């Protein structure tokens, strides 16, 4: 149980216990435990290579874990018999490189999952897709091919592609890292709006201002383990740990001294 922004206690949606992951001899995640509550927005930050992307990828089965367990609504999803096809409909993911399918229009990209995986009707899927496209400001683009869109537009469409499956939780893996600066805002605004509407999300990002605005809790990962978990205001103004302080200092610049 945790206290959220609005002060309401809510259930644990995703329960991560003692997660371990290594690539060969390299340990990437040592012993990672975290509870994500329904409606909560968790922002994961940390230096490059700290394991935060790997952590996200473990959550929807793109990486196999070597130890520990993950439970979604109490059901173990790290067992060998996990039906990832089912789980992935509940745990959506948006990637850094906004990989829309280039051989399909925006609308086809969005309806593929609902129609082929969830067996929803084509009409209903298209209608929902249009509504969601309008919500992210892409109403005019349903028949465009990905190559005709800007990076920011592609990423917004990719968010809708995850959203349309009605997932319980959405994972965002550095979704603005590959974007030109002027397009970062439009994507972050969409995520911010989703957060306000109550979506549960785990966001990996390097955008500190955004993290501060959107997070219910900030999780700081370094060296494959959670070093600190704090509410955003506390984390950014008064971090508990020395490692977090050092990391945050990298984003500060001293003013150039004026010559006498």
């Amino acid at each position, binding site marked *: 149980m945790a206290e959220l922004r609005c002060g309401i206690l809510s259930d644990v949606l995703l329960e991560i216990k003692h997660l371990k992951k290594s690539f060969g001899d390299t340990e990437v995640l040592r012993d990672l435990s975290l509870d994500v509550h329904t409606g909560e927005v968790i922002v994961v930050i940390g230096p490059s290579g700290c394991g935060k992307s790997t952590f996200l990828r473990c959550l929807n089965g793109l990486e196999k874990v070597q130890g520990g367990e993950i439970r979604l609504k109490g059901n173990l999803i790290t067992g060998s018999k996990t039906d990832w096809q089912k789980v992935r409909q509940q745990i959506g993911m948006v990637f850094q490189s906004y*990989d829309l399918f*280039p051989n399909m229009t925006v609308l086809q990209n969005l309806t*593929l999952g609902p129609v082929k995986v969830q067996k929803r009707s084509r009409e209903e899927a298209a209608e929902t897709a249009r509504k969601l496209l309008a919500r992210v400001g892409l109403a005019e683009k349903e028949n465009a091919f990905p190559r005709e869109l800007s990076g920011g537009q592609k990423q917004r469409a990719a968010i809708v592609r995850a959203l349309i499956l009605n997932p319980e939780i959405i994972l965002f893996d550095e979704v603005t890292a590959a974007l030109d600066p002027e397009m970062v805002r439009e994507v972050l605004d969409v995520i911010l709006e989703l957060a306000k509407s109550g979506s549960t999300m785990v966001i990996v990002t390097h955008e500190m201002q955004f993290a501060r605005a959107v997070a219910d809790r900030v999780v700081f990962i370094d060296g494959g383990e959670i070093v600190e978990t704090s509410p955003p205001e506390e984390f950014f103004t008064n971090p508990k740990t020395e490692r977090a302080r050092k990391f945050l200092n990298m984003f500060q610049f001293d003013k150039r001294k004026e010559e006498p």
Partner: protein
Amino acid sequence: MDWLFLQKYTPMYIEAAGLTLRIAAIGILLSFAVGLVCSVVQQLKIPVLRQIVGGYIELSRNTPLLVQLFFLYFGFPRLGIMISSELCGIIGLAFLGGSYMAEAFRSGIDSIEQTQIESGLSIGLSKMQLIRYIVLPQAVSVSVPAFCANIIFLIKETSVFSAVALADLMYVAKDLIGLYYNTNEALLLLVIAYLVLLLPISVVSTIIERRLRHARFGN
């Protein structure tokens, strides 16, 4: 130049060209099917089948079509399996072409980014759905130039069919030379016949390739 000869025997070439084209068409269609199955097996890394496919591809690519045809035409009857010349040609072409088509498919599949696969997985697609909706459509467009080259290559390879008594273009030419010694005329007609068959295919494939380049996917 014996113009009368040309006039008289052109119909024979046309007939032979028809046969060549028919067998080539069936053989090439089959080789697409064989190639597709092989590349899917390799892509899905299905155990055992994958090793068999690997062995087949090496065997098929590293032996001449003529040897493969002899094996079918003279070898199989010894096992009690009689195969007609035509069937021999079709099977031989599919056997040879299958491996080349598999490689063409593979080059297309290899060109697909891992992130495309992961995006597909992340919306819950199964492996087969991933192949059908994401991998193949993208792979095919990349593979088209290789497909076109293979088609032309396989049609040219049909010229060895005469060795298993199939009355294709080459067979007719050799026959006429043997009968009348009109070597120049017979070979001239042969060259023309192959050009008439292959030039249009070559031109069409160039146009398709250019179109694909223009409409190229780009994420």
